[in-house]
Structure formats: structure tokens, C-alpha cells
């Protein structure tokens, strides 16, 4: 990775480093050349690392007090809220932390879509990212089941029932997943086990994600390759560290607002009612971050095809580097793509909205149109656009835009300011 050799100054350091080159790694991480034109959308990688660590640390404490049993789970959560020292704080950080995690990951993903960070040579980083995202959804869903409230129970019932759509073996698979003939104690205990396991899988994948990133280096808002190290780059420390730190603090203020002043606003009231297999809630809705996919699922009348559509909506992202035929990375130089990008953003927001509404009448119609458009974007618009679009000429280096150099760049800058 590192282009230069590193030798520790102290004798002890050298002795250690010859046996385990941790100091070389640390040196690589601090010196890592980063394009100096990265904007604040690039700070979400650091923010996401913070989110993951926060969830793991608070989760560890919660697991010390939580009881994974259908008869005691709900009560143990109340015990945490009332009797554990600062239990309310830890639980609210963990619960809202999940939402903050997804907020950050959506910004991170859409940043990549805008600046074409998924394109060659960064496909592997992108695919690892999609796997992390899938695991995050699994972890979040299982975590939501653990308090054993009404939404926990019925959400688990609805989602696990999706597997019954698998031809021939569906029913058997569902029984196997449940560990019985309905969602019950065996389901809860295995969800708890997996909820504890998955974050560590994510942690491992995050290491790979960063490793894969450090091979080609960061993409940047201009989207052209950067010579490293050069006058176009700055060492990661202190430049990027302080910038990421600043952005993280801003993020933490928003986070703190939710934790301290609106801790339940992102959850559903029904989850404060203890699970009751005999009473079905009027509307079963997942957490907000899963709503777009829930809308896609419900917009297809056939159960199996609905599940296929929902899974495809996520997995289609994994092949995105090959669906997007354009060689130009940044949307700044792709005037048409930029417009379709914002339409996609609106489309996903609309899907999220109708996902929270009952699947009937006008909502269902909107959901169907938006679902169709979602697939149209990836399967038709992106491949065709890359071949047909007339792009704006790229600058020769990122120093040009930074110093406000060439006429092309002036135009690109103007376009960019319009976005914000």
C-alpha cells in the first residue's frame, strides 16, 4: 500500500516493527495521501465508524441487563430504563443510534452515487459496502425485535413470513427460522444471538472496506485520478482527521438532540405495548430506514415476486459499477445524469413515504410508479445515459478547481453551487 519504506526511530520500535509491522501500519494510516478537494460529503465514512463503535459499546452494556426470553424481554427493557444507572441514556443512544447509523449510511451511499465512487477501480470497495449495508439491515431488524413489543413481534412475523414465498420449501424454511410454528421464544433467542454477532461481522468488513479503499485511494468531487502523494493530496493526519472530527461533532449535536429531546419520535408507539400474539396492530410498519424497500415489497401483488423485487432493489446496487456505462465518475461533469440522480433521490423518498402509509388506493398507485421508476433508473437510464450523454470536459488536475483555474472548472463550480 504505502509507497515509501518506514523505519521507527527508537530501537525498541524497530525491534517490534520487524516482528509485527504495526508501526508501519500506523504510519501508513497517518500519512495516507488524501485528495485535498474532498468536501463534507466525504466525512460520513468516519461518522459511520463512530456509529458502529457507539452501537457496539452501548449494545454490550445493554446485553448485560437484557433478558432474551419471551416472558421477560419487555420487562427487562423497562428494568434498564428505570433501575439500571443511566440505563435510559444507554438504551436511547442505542435505539436512536440505529437511526443515526442509517441516516449516515444513506448519505454515504448517495454521495457515492453522485460522484461515481463505485466505478473502476473501486468496485470491490462498493460491493463490500453493499454487503455491510445488507448486514446493517439484518442487525437493525433483529434489534428491533428484542424489546418484544407489539411492533417487534408483528414485524418479525411479517418479515420472516416472506421466506414462505420460496417455492416448495418455503413453509419448511419459515418453521426452521422460527424454531417452532410461530414467532416465539426460540425466535427471540436466536435473533438475540445473531444481533450480537452481526456487528462484529460488520466490523471485519469495515476493515476490508477501508483496506480496499487504501489501495486506489479516495475518489474526489472532480472524479479524476490523483497522483499520490503530490500537491493534490494532503496527509490524512492532521488534515482529514480534524475535518472529519469537525463534521462528526456536528453530527453528534443532531444525535444528542434526538437522544435527549425526542428519544421516541423515530420509533413506533405500539412497541411500548408488550407483544401479544392474539392482537394484530392496525398497521404493521418497519422502522423508517426500511420503508422504501417495504413499499417495493407491497407494490407487487404477488408475494414471491414482491420478495424478489425487494431483494433485487438492494442487490441491483451490487452490479451498479457495470450498469453505469459512463467512464466519467463525477456527476459534476454529467449534466443529464445529475438530473436523473436527483429524481432518483426524490423517488426513494417517495417510496419511503408511501411505505409508511396503508397499501391501498392512491398510495399503492404511487408506490407502483415509484417502484417501476427505481428499476428503470438502474436498468435502462444508467446504461443508455453512459453511451448517449454529452459530458463536460474534465480538468487536468484537481488543483485547477481548487484554485478556480480553467474556464471548464468555473462552469463546473457554478453547477455545483446550484445543487446546494
Amino acid at each position, binding site marked *: 500500500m504505502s509507497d515509501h519504506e518506514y523505519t521507527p526511530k527508537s530501537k525498541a520500535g524497530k525491534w517490534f516493527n520487524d516482528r509485527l509491522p504495526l508501526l508501519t501500519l500506523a504510519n501508513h494510516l497517518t500519512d495516507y495521501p488524501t485528495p485535498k478537494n474532498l468536501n463534507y460529503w466525504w466525512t460520513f465514512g468516519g461518522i459511520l465508524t463512530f456509529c458502529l463503535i457507539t452501537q457496539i459499546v452501548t449494545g454490550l452494556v445493554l446485553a448485560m441487563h437484557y433478558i432474551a426470553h419471551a416472558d421477560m424481554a419487555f420487562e427487562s427493557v423497562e428494568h434498564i430504563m*428505570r433501575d439500571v444507572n443511566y440505563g435510559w441514556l444507554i438504551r436511547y443512544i442505542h435505539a436512536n443510534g440505529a437511526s443515526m447509523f442509517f441516516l449516515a449510511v444513506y448519505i454515504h451511499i448517495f454521495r457515492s452515487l453522485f460522484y461515481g465512487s463505485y466505478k473502476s477501480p473501486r468496485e470491490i470497495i462498493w460491493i463490500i459496502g453493499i454487503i455491510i449495508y445488507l448486514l446493517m439491515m439484518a442487525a437493525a431488524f433483529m434489534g428491533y425485535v428484542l424489546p418484544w413489543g407489539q411492533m417487534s413481534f408483528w414485524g418479525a412475523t411479517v418479515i420472516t413470513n416472506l421466506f414462505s414465498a420460496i417455492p416448495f420449501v418455503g413453509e419448511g424454511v419459515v418453521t426452521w427460522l422460527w424454531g417452532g410454528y410461530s414467532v416465539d421464544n426460540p425466535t427471540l433467542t436466536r435473533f438475540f444471538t445473531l444481533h450480537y454477532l452481526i456487528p462484529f461481522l460488520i466490523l471485519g468488513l469495515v476493515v476490508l472496506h477501508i483496506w480496499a479503499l487504501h489501495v486506489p485511494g479516495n475518489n474526489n468531487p472532480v472524479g479524476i485520478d490523483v497522483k499520490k502523494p503530490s500537491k493534490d493530496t494532503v496527509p490524512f493526519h492532521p488534515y482529514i482527521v480534524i475535518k472529519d472530527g469537525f463534521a462528526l461533532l456536528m453530527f453528534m449535536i443532531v444525535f444528542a438532540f434526538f437522544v435527549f429531546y425526542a428519544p421516541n419520535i423515530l420509533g413506533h408507539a405500539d412497541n411500548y405495548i408488550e407483544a401479544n400474539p392474539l392482537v394484530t396492530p392496525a398497521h404493521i410498519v418497519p422502522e423508517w430506514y426500511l420503508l422504501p424497500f417495504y413499499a417495493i415489497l407491497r407494490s407487487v401483488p404477488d408475494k414471491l415476486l414482491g420478495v424478489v423485487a425487494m431483494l433485487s432493489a438492494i442487490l441491483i446496487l451490487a452490479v451498479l459499477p457495470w450498469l453505469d456505462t459512463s467512464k466519467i465518475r463525477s456527476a459534476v461533469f454529467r449534466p443529464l445524469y445529475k438530473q436523473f440522480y436527483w429524481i432518483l433521490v*426524490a423517488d426513494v423518498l417517495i417510496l419511503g413515504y408511501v411505505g409508511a402509509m396503508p397499501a391501498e388506493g*392512491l398510495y399503492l398507485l404511487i408506490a407502483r410508479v415509484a417502484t417501476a421508476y427505481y428499476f428503470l433508473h438502474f436498468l435502462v437510464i444508467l446504461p443508455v445515459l453512459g453511451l448517449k450523454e454529452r459530458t463536460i470536459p474534465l480538468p487536468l488536475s484537481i488543483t485547477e478547481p481548487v484554485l478556480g483555474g480553467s474556464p471548464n472548472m468555473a462552469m463546473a463550480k457554478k453547477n455545483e453551487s446550484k445543487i446546494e
Partner: protein
Amino acid sequence: MKNILKLFSVIILFSVSSVNVISAEKVEFLKTDWTFKGLFGKFDRASLQRGYQVYTEVCAACHSMKYLSYRNLSEKGGPEFSVAQAKAIAASFEVTDGPNADGEMFQRPGKLSDKFVMPYENVKAAEAANGGAYPPDMSVLVKARGGGVDYIYSLLQGYEEAPSGMILDDGVHYNKYMYGNKIKMSAPLSDGIIEYSDGTKASVEQMSKDVTTFLMWAAEPSLEARHQMGFKAIVYLIILTVLVYFSMKRIWSRVKSEV
């Protein structure tokens, strides 16, 4: 291509406005000034104590509050009865304990460490005594209802004559704010149903407000601590953010670039 964007925003506007039409039939809840809302929101101590009185003299006949203990009544941020008062309250309840050395269950006066005594032995007994409807546990009731305190406050005052044409079964009552307008609980409050020990006039509105405040505390006993810590945490974060911002500007001034 600009047209695509325009067309799209028109579609969004249209769909949002039509969505509003669909959900327009929602009932507006009654509003009152809750002292516990806002950045520095705190409970009204006297209201909490009165609310406990309403709960224990009216609601507790049917509704349990199984996650609360008598000790909570004297804890900081709650009704803050004195420890002696809380002990007296606890002792006024008979608690089943045991088994003793002879293997027998026995009755004794309640202690601070006891959970609130439940009105019924179990859910089935509660249902049997209430025409098949289970009076929900009130520990987290405020958080378990969309609309929260405003909903509970409104519901308590929402009993009206059923509109003509609506047929109510025996033991079912009309309530303006209840989901589907049909509720098994008869109007629990009426003017003067209890006598407040602090002399406040026990109107339905006053009792609704007091008991809802009490329920809010029961569901969120650390609300005051949360608000206090939240303010400190956010002020601290803002100061740190400003300092880090200037450090960042300083560090980046060495490079010809913008931050």
C-alpha cells in the same frame, strides 16, 4: 431537461396535497400547557402528587402499574413525596409474600421496595371483571399511544352522547378521541369525584391534566434528568465544535485549498 425536474416537482406537490386530503378527517386533540415539554421541561411537583391521588383513587381500581415501585414515589424528578410519606403509602397496601417457613403465603403491609400492587391476579381475571376488555397496564401507557399525553388528556374528557344512528352495545361507551370512537371504559372522572388533599378544585379538566402528568412521569421517570443532561451535553458539543472549527481553519491554512 430542466422540464423533467419541473414536471417531477409538480407530481410531488400533487401527491403530497392529495395525501393531505386523505388524512384530513383526523381528530384534533385537546391541548394544554405541559410543563415537562421543551428544553428545560420539568414536572409540576404538585400536579404529580395530585395525579398520583387520582391514579390511586380512581384508575388503580382496574389499571395496574406493574413496573413502578413505591420507592419511585420519593425519588428525585418524580412526585417527590418524602420518604416517610412514601413508606406510609406503601404500608397502606396489603402485599402477598412468602412462602414462609411453613410453606404458606401470607399478607403483610407494603414496603418501599415493593412494586405497585396489582388490582387483579392476572389478565384473565381483569378481563372477566371488565366485560372482556383488559384495562391496559399504565406504566408506559403514555408512550404506547400515538399522540401521547395529548391523546390521554383528550380521551379522559372525550366522553359524549353517541351521535344518533350509532348503536352501542351494552357496556360500550362513545368517546370522541378513541380509535373507532367505541370504548369499554365508562367515563372514569366526574367533577368532585375525589377530594384533593391540597384543596385544589377537582374538576374533570384538572384531574385529567394531573393524572396525565403522573402517567408521563410513570412512563419516563428520568425525563428531568434527561433534559438537564441534554442541555449540558449539547452546549458542551457546540463549544467543542466551534473550537475544532477554528483549529481546522488554522491547520488547513497551510494548504492552498478550501475547507
